[in-house]
């Protein structure tokens, strides 16, 4: 085959490979990597993007020291961690539960799956907007339904600093549970039937089958789903920007929301670039460790 391939006219395979990959590579370098390097460079300066004539000075690690030493930043990180942890826990539990139920093949299964998946395909910003209506303390449907079951009186999910962090957890869980569900479902469907048949022969109880066959098989899939969601929620911006825009005060000011305020409202470009680099390194670091752990679990 190889000797025959050489005879063909036209460009060599090697040339084609490069011609085909080059545009993608160039675009990624120009619009992704160059800006990242640019951001890293700016993070060592006192640059303000809105003060154009001003002299830009190299300040070394000052921005980084300032950020890591700031109490406020750790608060933002805590808020982000609260959001990420709770959304992951809820989406793992509900998503896996739904997947287990959907795996019992009943009529209309596929249609139901498609309908359940709808929320996650919507625009997060638009979802944020319409949930402000549902959460409205005077006329909102959410508040009405909650009061229907237990009379709390008037409460404001978005306006109260104790409830607001939960308001974003609820909406994100509503929106993204189908994501874990779909991936877990794929995991469940990949389990060969003979495993259960063999377990039946060995007189293993349903519960034992679940613990020893179902759970270990679905775990890698669940972990993969949580990796995707973890990264996305750590970067979370659009949904929360429109739902609470970080408020009240800074009760739901996630890292990305804070970054936007520093970069595009206060125009502290140097400082915010340093924060962006810190966030990126955190995501990258966590992601890599997580993938290593995930692969270990998979190999077992």
């Amino acid at each position, binding site marked *: 085959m190889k000797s025959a391939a050489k005879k063909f006219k036209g460009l060599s395979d090697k040339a084609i490979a490069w011609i085909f990959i080059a545009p993608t590579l160039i*675009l990624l370098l120009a619009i992704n990597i160059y800006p990242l390097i640019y951001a890293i460079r700016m993070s060592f300066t006192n640059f303000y993007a809105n003060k154009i004539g001003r002299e830009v000075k190299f300040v070394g690690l000052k921005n980084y020291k300032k950020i890591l030493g700031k109490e406020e930043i750790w608060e933002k990180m805590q808020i982000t961690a609260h959001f990420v942890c709770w959304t992951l826990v809820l989406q793992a539990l509900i998503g896996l539960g739904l997947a287990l139920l959907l795996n019992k093949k009943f009529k209309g299964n596929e249609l139901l799956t498609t309908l359940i998946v709808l929320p996650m395909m919507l625009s997060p910003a638009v979802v944020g907007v319409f949930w402000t209506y549902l959460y409205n303390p005077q006329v909102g449907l959410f508040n009405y339904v909650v009061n229907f079951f237990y009379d709390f009186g008037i409460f404001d999910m978005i306006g109260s600093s104790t409830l607001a962090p939960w308001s974003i957890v609820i909406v994100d869980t509503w929106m993204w549970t189908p994501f874990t569900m779909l991936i877990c479902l794929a995991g469940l469907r990949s389990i060969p039937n003979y495993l259960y048949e063999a377990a039946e022969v060995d007189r293993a109880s349903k519960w034992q089958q679940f613990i020893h066959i179902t759970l270990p098989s679905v775990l890698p899939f669940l972990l993969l789903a949580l990796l995707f969601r973890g990264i996305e929620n750590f970067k979370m911006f659009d949904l929360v920007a429109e739902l609470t825009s970080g408020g009240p005060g800074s009760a739901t000011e996630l890292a990305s929301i804070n970054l936007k305020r520093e970069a595009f409202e206060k125009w502290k470009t140097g400082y915010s670039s340093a924060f962006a680099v810190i966030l990126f390194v955190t995501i990258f670091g966590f992601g890599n460790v997580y993938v290593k752990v995930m692969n270990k679990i998979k190999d077992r």
Partner: protein
Amino acid sequence: MDTSRSPSEASGFSRKLAATIIIVYMVVTLIPISWMVATSFKSVDSAISYPPEVFFEPSLEGYVNLFTNRSRQPKDYLDSLPPPDTWYEELVRSREMVITGPSKFLPRYSNSLIIGFGATFFSVFLGSLAAYALSRFKVPLKDDLLFFILSTRMFPPIAVAVPIFIMYRKLGLGDTHVGMIILYTVVNLSLSVWLLKGFMDEIPREYEEAAMIDGYSRMQAFFKVVLPQATTGIAATAIFCMIFSWNEYAFAVLLTQFNAQTAPPFIPTIIGEGGLDWPAIGAGTTLFLIPVMIFTVVLRKHLLRGITFGAVRK
């Protein structure tokens, strides 16, 4: 044989129970969306009544408000006007207002379409070239290259937004359609390369090899044999890219203002007089969500693959 039952062949009762729970969940999870669609057909007064009205008299006020700008006028001025020509003018007049012109919704919506289609075309076109090369040829550091392409997705958009903002300002690309198309193309490239590589890996090499023995060049074999074979995959990838560009918000809100702004940053701003025009928000939301819902139904077989960058293929 009957004694060996896998969970997928569970007993009638547990299957019925599962179906019931799933249906309840489906209904509950679709309430927020249905509520927003219902709100779009309410009048402003009905949308702010408490307890929330489940049954209401349908009105197109939300849609009229979405597409027009209006101003409130004193009663004697309204009386001095000739009677309204159209039903929507009449509707606005009954709220003691007059239409002053079309709103910005249509331009924003068409921006979403232009930028969405443009970015989808380029990311799928460039993505299929790169995916083919990565699928068929020996490329040095292939795995690193693929990981690099994926890792561009890990940046928080805000992290690169400042440099891109400055870059675009220098290049004159800020707030332009071209600038946004380039940006969304790049953001979508990682997804399109990964997905399309998966789809192309599944097309047997023998097809092209046979075509090349028949005298096709490698290029001809790619365009005339591989691409037609990959149509389903390309279509699925294109829909995913379209949905992403359609839904994108962070870059749109930070990099566009007047000219090239898409619908997502605009919809929240149509809240109207006194912050109470929920039907108009509902109408904007409904019109914005309908295409995505249709796409989702079309895509249902490929959803899983799309959302996991091809990591899970079923």
